[in-house]
């Protein structure tokens, strides 16, 4: 049943998402050539048109990112908060499966959107010249060299830096999920269905994250103090790159863990509300 639910959840967003993805990918080629024109410093109308193209590409990228995330959130809203909830909750599907399907489709849309943006950037950078090759090859070479250098200097901590990027992504996804849960929570928890309060939901997510931050900071500061002043990493003198990397990594881990704990709590709360306390008036 999860497969079927997921199929319909993704199908509901597929058309708009596909059109936007195609537009972004087409624009990545056009934008790549536009950036190439700017790099080659051509004059006149071509230069003006190139600036316009790059601007449109930039705006489209932002719109696409927002839409990619927004479509998943909208699916939560549509299924749980509009009259479509009458269909959602009368389907012969376990409520848990319904919630899982919405969560998965939101995550898939989010990850796919990020993937398309990365592909678009790769396309653009492969067109833009840099020295004898393209900007892509230069970027890949410099990233490779940077990683090698970092590994030589910091060893294990290079892996930690890479992990930070992954954690940041997970953190962004958990923020999206939190937003979705806050929508679902307000749907099923209320005695009567209230109108969508995007502002209130955003404020809730923001407050939760500020709260997590407030809880994280003192703990991280304490650990950082211990690390630095006890030379726990056996590096004497000033704060080394390895030490600062460790502290940043620790902060992110703490922040993400708290975000995940809150998400798990909200997930359980949502599930209880749609299974045992549903009030669709």
């Amino acid at each position, binding site marked *: 049943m999860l497969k079927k639910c997921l199929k319909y959840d993704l199908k509901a967003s597929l058309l708009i998402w596909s059109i936007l993805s195609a537009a972004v990918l087409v624009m990545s080629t056009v934008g790549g050539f536009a950036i190439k024109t700017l790099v080659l410093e051509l004059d006149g109308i071509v230069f003006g048109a190139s600036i316009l193209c790059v601007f449109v590409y930039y705006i489209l990228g932002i719109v696409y990112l927002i839409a990619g995330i927004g479509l998943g959130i909208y699916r939560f809203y549509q299924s749980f908060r509009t009259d479509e909830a*009458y269909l959602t909750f009368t389907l012969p599907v376990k409520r848990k499966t319904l919630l899982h399907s919405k969560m998965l489709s939101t995550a898939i849309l989010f990850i796919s959107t990020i993937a398309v943006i990365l592909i678009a950037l790769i396309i653009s950078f492969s067109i833009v010249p840099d020295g004898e090759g393209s900007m892509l090859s230069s970027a890949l070479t410099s990233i490779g060299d940077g990683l090698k250098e970092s590994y030589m200097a910091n060893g294990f901590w290079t892996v930690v830096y890479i992990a930070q990027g992954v954690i940041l992504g997970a953190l962004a996804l958990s923020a999206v999920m939190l937003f979705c849960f806050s929508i679902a929570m307000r749907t099923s928890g209320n005695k009567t269905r209230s109108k969508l309060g995007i502002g209130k939901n955003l404020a809730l997510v923001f407050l939760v994250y500020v709260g997590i931050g407030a809880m994280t900071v003192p703990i991280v500061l304490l650990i950082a103090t211990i690390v630095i002043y006890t030379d726990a990493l056996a590096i004497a003198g000033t704060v080394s790159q390895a030490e600062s990397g460790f502290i940043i990594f620790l902060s992110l881990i703490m922040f993400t863990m708290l975000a995940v704990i809150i998400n798990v709590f909200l997930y359980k709360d949502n599930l209880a509300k749609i299974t045992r306390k549903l009030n669709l008036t």
Partner: protein
Amino acid sequence: MSNVPVLKCENLCKSYQAGKAVLDGFNLTIEPGRIVGLLGPNGCGKSTFLKLVCGLLVPDGGKIEIEGKERSEESNLLISFLPERTYFDSRSKVSELISLFDDFYADFDRAVAEKMMNDLHIPLDAKLKTLSKGMKEKVQLIMVMSRKAKLYLLDEPIGGVDPASREYILNTIISNYNPEASIIITTHLIADIEPVLDDFAFMTYGGNIVRMGNADTVREATGKTLDELFREEFRC
């Protein structure tokens, strides 16, 4: 035919606000193979009752049994519910809705649904948002009645439908449903729906049943139609 009631409600209670019970100790038993009209004034709790049965609301107290088993998530397999509002995604095509029902409900008869759509001149490739309110209601009713469910809950099924189509829809209801299944219909258009009803229940505020019985028997005994009896009972 099974002797187990399709639906049995005992002491059902529901309130949206503290101290204002919409249903207070509501009792109703529906035997298999009956078409029951649940009739009452606005706000007496008819829709609330249907939503409780299909799980869109959680009762504050009491018991709901579907085919002898306590209502659960699995009960949705046995119930076909038509809400009083349009509840399908308006961007969907009629054919997509048919596929959705076909995918999720093992008892959905695709051929019957397509035939009924054709009879009511509803194009399968039409998007719901391009159809009128009445046409949307017809689509919903067809989808719900194309299932071979055990219990159909129809909340105002013909409210927005033109009189010419009402007859077709009522005939559809009678001819399509499983003889072992039961139907509960709530409506204000009593005169229209009366010919198809086996039983009726007049419901008043607080979920009290003030009169119920076999439609033919009551008509013969009183010499009045259900519509006339309803007007007498609930005269303002």
